[in-house]
């Protein structure tokens, strides 16, 4: 190896340039690692491994810089290394100013490397003289008294415990020539044993071309496979095609993998960013990063670097409070910043959560009015979440003064825009006094997407497999053919009941405005050209059919072969987005295909329902549906005020259930029938809450739960609402616990299910273990209650169910008189 490199070096200037560029690129990578190790070190001074690793980085850079004749670089690296050696040997405590000095050396090294990478020159050799002197002075002056080596922080000092050679004086040749191209001199490490030929640097443009060509190859393969169907009786051909198919699939996987990078490379700078910013603001912040190994296409990685850094800076600068304020608020003086990356439904999610002050909604409200985004009256009526969403509007920023660290005129609006440009989304959930959680969802648009191909009114669409949970076929007559699945009407809207869950339904054709486009498949393209006006809605036709049935008081379509739905052989694809599911009604499901995502042209890229397009196996083009945005468009799963900008979804905490927002409906049910919400208790008992008193169903994060005056309350839509744990009032029959639900949720940090009930003008939240279903039950056969707080018992779905006596429950919780009942 050594000889080979010497030859390279001597072979000519071009080769020399390559050697230097490789050196620079490799060193820059190592420096990121270096920064992280240093910040770790400040936190855990005993982390000898981090110390040794940081030491090795500077040591290697110094060695190679010497060989290549970059003296200024060598001097800076040497000084930093000297300081690190003192730290490592315990001669210097890892105080912030020491760490800062080491980090500054690292920065200087980076600047020099970048300069060398650009024009092969170091610039002014004296530029860093002051820094070097300072670092050396720090290393020397703070040495423990009585230490024999006190006078010199220089080389050759001590025997390192890791068994590495001590820092050799600059210019001496104990570093072998090939050390420049391996990461490590002696200490064991994954890279130490990996010689240069184990990995090769490749121009990213080559990778992109490879991915593109492979994508085309896959498409050709798919078409060959289809074309060969006509020749199944030719064993040679079938065999060849099978081979081809397998090879192409393998090739595709591997080619795509080359462009995937762990998100680590994005995160590696953050500890340093957070640390520097925290020090500058006089704050202490603990940064926790989970999911560094999550992989993402590198082209996307590059494009989320700035938004992510901005969010992190914001969290430290504006989110986390000064230690004194935190102490006064009863918090740990050290702020916490958690970054979590994970794959979810074919997307990468990055969550940035701080435990700071949360967004100042009053300031946002004021700014919104000042800047004319909303008028004063409207602003006053906006919910907190809606106000938070306002910050995404272009030109919105609550910091009137541009602060040194994260202001710079770049606000959340810019972050949101860059995310949207990538086809990603951003959610913000902010709770005053408890912090802000920002969730970025980033699509893997460049990857191969396993997809479900569906068809509606003759047009095919692809749905990312990852968002599909199951497919429910309605069969010829609309019969679901199963007791567990049925269609029904809830408050005038068709919904799908699936194993006890109630899911909203979305007709794809309605959502896309093509419901009237009933055409012959072959002619679809031409006919689709003029989408007819005033087309009939599939939802309406369903509502008509199902509504008529409902008046008879029967559940619709359940095992009833006679009850046809128009276009009766439709399928329902149950899709999931975020934490919510809904049923997407399509004419039929074609098959599953691996598709290559192609971006949409500029003319149609703005349509917020597609993530791209693809060429199907038969050569036709299909649009790829963007499930989260489709859900948003259909207003599923999110409470978005009119003021919310498009592309911003409300936080999951605001998600509504199928009954949300429709308010209580009184007197629509015959007296012998009662619409109730069925809940499961922790020991699998059944309780029912009359639907007419229910305002909303919410799944709320534990953090919304607060103790006030000896009881639990939540803040909901600007009100403080007392909450009653049903399991506490109607205790479990098998085990007795005090506040079992809430205490457990409190401890486990779980989400809580809250049924918000209206009692006159008042709101009371019932905390239930689990919401099962909404049914209209016959209450003719009721039996007297077996305990207080229960109106009566009734058998629903073969289970004895206790129907809650809401008024009694209020009284038992000491909440009597909070308001009059709406109706007797």
């Amino acid at each position, binding site marked *: 190896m050594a000889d080979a490199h010497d030859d390279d070096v001597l072979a000519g200037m071009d080769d020399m340039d390559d050697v230097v560029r490789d050196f620079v690129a490799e060193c820059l990578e190592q420096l990121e690692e270096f920064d992280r190790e240093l910040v770790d070190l400040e936190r855990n001074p005993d982390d000898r491994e981090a110390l040794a690793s940081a030491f090795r980085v500077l040591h290697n850079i110094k060695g190679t810089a010497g060989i290549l004749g970059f003296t200024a670089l060598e001097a800076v690296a040497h000084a930093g290394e000297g300081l690190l050696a003192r730290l490592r040997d315990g001669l210097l405590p890892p105080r912030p100013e020491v760490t800062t000095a080491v980090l500054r050396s690292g920065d200087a090294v980076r600047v020099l490397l970048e300069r060398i990478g650009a024009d092969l020159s170091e610039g002014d050799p004296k530029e860093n003289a002051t820094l070097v002197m300072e670092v050396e002075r720090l290393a020397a002056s703070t040495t423990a008294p009585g230490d024999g080596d006190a006078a010199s922080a220089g080389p050759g000092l001590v025997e390192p415990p890791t068994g590495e050679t001590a820092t050799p004086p600059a210019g001496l040749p104990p570093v072998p020539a090939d050390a420049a191209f391996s990461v490590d001199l002696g200490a064991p490490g994954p890279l130490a044993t990996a010689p240069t030929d184990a990995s090769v640097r490749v121009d990213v443009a080559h990778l992109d071309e490879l991915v593109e060509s492979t994508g085309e190859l896959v498409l050709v393969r798919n078409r060959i496979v289809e074309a060969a169907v006509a020749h199944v009786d030719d064993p040679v051909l079938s065999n060849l095609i099978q081979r081809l198919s397998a090879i192409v699939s393998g090739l595709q996987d591997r080619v795509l993998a080359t462009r995937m990078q762990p998100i680590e490379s994005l995160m590696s700078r953050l500890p340093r960013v957070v640390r520097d910013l925290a020090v500058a603001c006089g704050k202490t912040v603990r940064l926790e990063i989970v999911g560094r190994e999550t992989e993402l296409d590198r082209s996307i990685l590059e494009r989320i670097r700035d938004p992510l850094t901005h969010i992190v800076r914001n969290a430290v600068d504006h989110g986390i409070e000064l230690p004194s304020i935190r102490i006064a608020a009863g918090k740990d003086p050290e702020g916490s910043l958690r970054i979590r990356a994970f794959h979810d439904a074919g997307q990468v999610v990055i969550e940035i959560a701080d435990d700071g002050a949360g967004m100042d909604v009053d300031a946002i409200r004021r700014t919104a009015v000042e800047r004319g985004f909303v008028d004063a009256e409207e602003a006053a009526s906006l919910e907190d979440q809606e106000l938070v969403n306002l910050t995404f509007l272009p030109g919105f920023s609550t910091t009137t003064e541009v602060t040194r660290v994260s202001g710079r005129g770049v606000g959340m609006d810019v972050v949101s825009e860059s995310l949207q440009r990538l086809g990603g989304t951003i959610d913000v959930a902010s709770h005053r006094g408890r912090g802000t959680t920002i969730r970025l969802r980033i699509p893997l648009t460049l990857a191969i997407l396993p997809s479900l191909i569906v068809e509606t009114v003759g047009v095919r669409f692809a749905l990312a497999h990852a968002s599909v949970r199951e497919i429910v076929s309605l069969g010829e007559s609309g019969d679901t053919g199963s007791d567990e699945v049925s269609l029904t009407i809830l408050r005038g809207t068709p919904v799908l009941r699936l194993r006890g869950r109630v899911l909203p339904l979305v007709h794809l054709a309605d959502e896309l405005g093509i419901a009237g486009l009933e055409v012959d498949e072959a002619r679809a393209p031409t006919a689709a050209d003029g989408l007819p006006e005033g087309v009939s809605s599939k939802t309406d036709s369903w509502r008509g059919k199902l509504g008529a049935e409902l008046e008879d008081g029967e559940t619709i379509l359940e095992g009833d072969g006679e009850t046809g739905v128009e276009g009766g052989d439709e399928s329902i694809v149950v899709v999931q987005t975020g934490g919510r599911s809904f049923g997407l009604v399509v004419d039929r499901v074609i098959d599953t295909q691996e598709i290559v995502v192609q971006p949409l*042209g500029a003319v149609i890229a703005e349509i917020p329902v597609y993530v791209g397009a693809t060429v199907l196996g038969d050569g036709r083009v299909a649009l790829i549906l963007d499930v989260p945005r489709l859900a948003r468009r259909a207003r599923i799963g999110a409470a978005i005020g009119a003021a919310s900008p498009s592309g911003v979804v409300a936080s999951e905490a605001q998600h509504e259930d199928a009954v949300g927002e429709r308010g209580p409906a009184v007197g629509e049910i015959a007296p012998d029938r009662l619409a109730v919400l069925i809940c499961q208790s922790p020991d699998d008992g059944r309780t029912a809450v009359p639907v007419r008193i229910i305002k909303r169903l919410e799944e709320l994060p534990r953090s919304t739960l607060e103790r006030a005056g000896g009881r639990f309350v939540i803040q909901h839509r600007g009100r403080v609402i007392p909450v009653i744990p049903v399991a506490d009032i109607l205790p479990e029959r098998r085990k007795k616990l005090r506040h079992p639900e809430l205490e457990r949720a409190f401890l486990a940090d779980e989400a809580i299910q809250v049924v918000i009930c209206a009692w006159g003008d008042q709101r009371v939240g019932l905390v239930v273990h689990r919401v099962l279903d909404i049914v209209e039950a016959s209450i003719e056969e009721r039996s007297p209650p077996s305990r207080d707080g229960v109106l009566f018992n009734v058998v629903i779905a073969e289970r004895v169910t206790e129907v809650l006596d809401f008024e009694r429950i209020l009284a038992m919780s000491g909440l009597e008189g909070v308001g009059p009942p709406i109706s007797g």
Partner: protein
Amino acid sequence: MGRIVQFCTFEVGADLFGILVDEAKEVIRLDEVTPVPLAPDHVRGLVNLRGRILTVIDLERRLAVAGGPSAGGLASAQHGLVLDVETGGLCLAVDRVGDVVEVDDDAFEAPPETMPEALRTMLLGAYKIGTERLLLVLDTERVIAPTPAA
């Protein structure tokens, strides 16, 4: 005698249009166009050209040209003129594709004032061909510029 310029010509409705020869890549038949619901009215859909997806712009709608064979009903333009556009594959749906025409740059004039506004804003100018015919030069950048969805 000015510079000689070559235009690729085509007809939409009764009008003769042209784009610079360098802008046009090839002519394809528009057989299977996948409609794009919610797209602007003038987007016919997507076609597959050897694995590449092109967006088809319906020129008749885009230019609001009346009187063509497809007027008042479903679009019928079956010829696609593929543009060499950096920003993504685009294809113009036209009624008939004509010859490459050479014109003298000196004959260039502004679009006639009498033209409907919608059409005139999409033109760079016009050349007189012979004695009666006008070759309308399309401003392709304007034509393919995204417009807010209807």
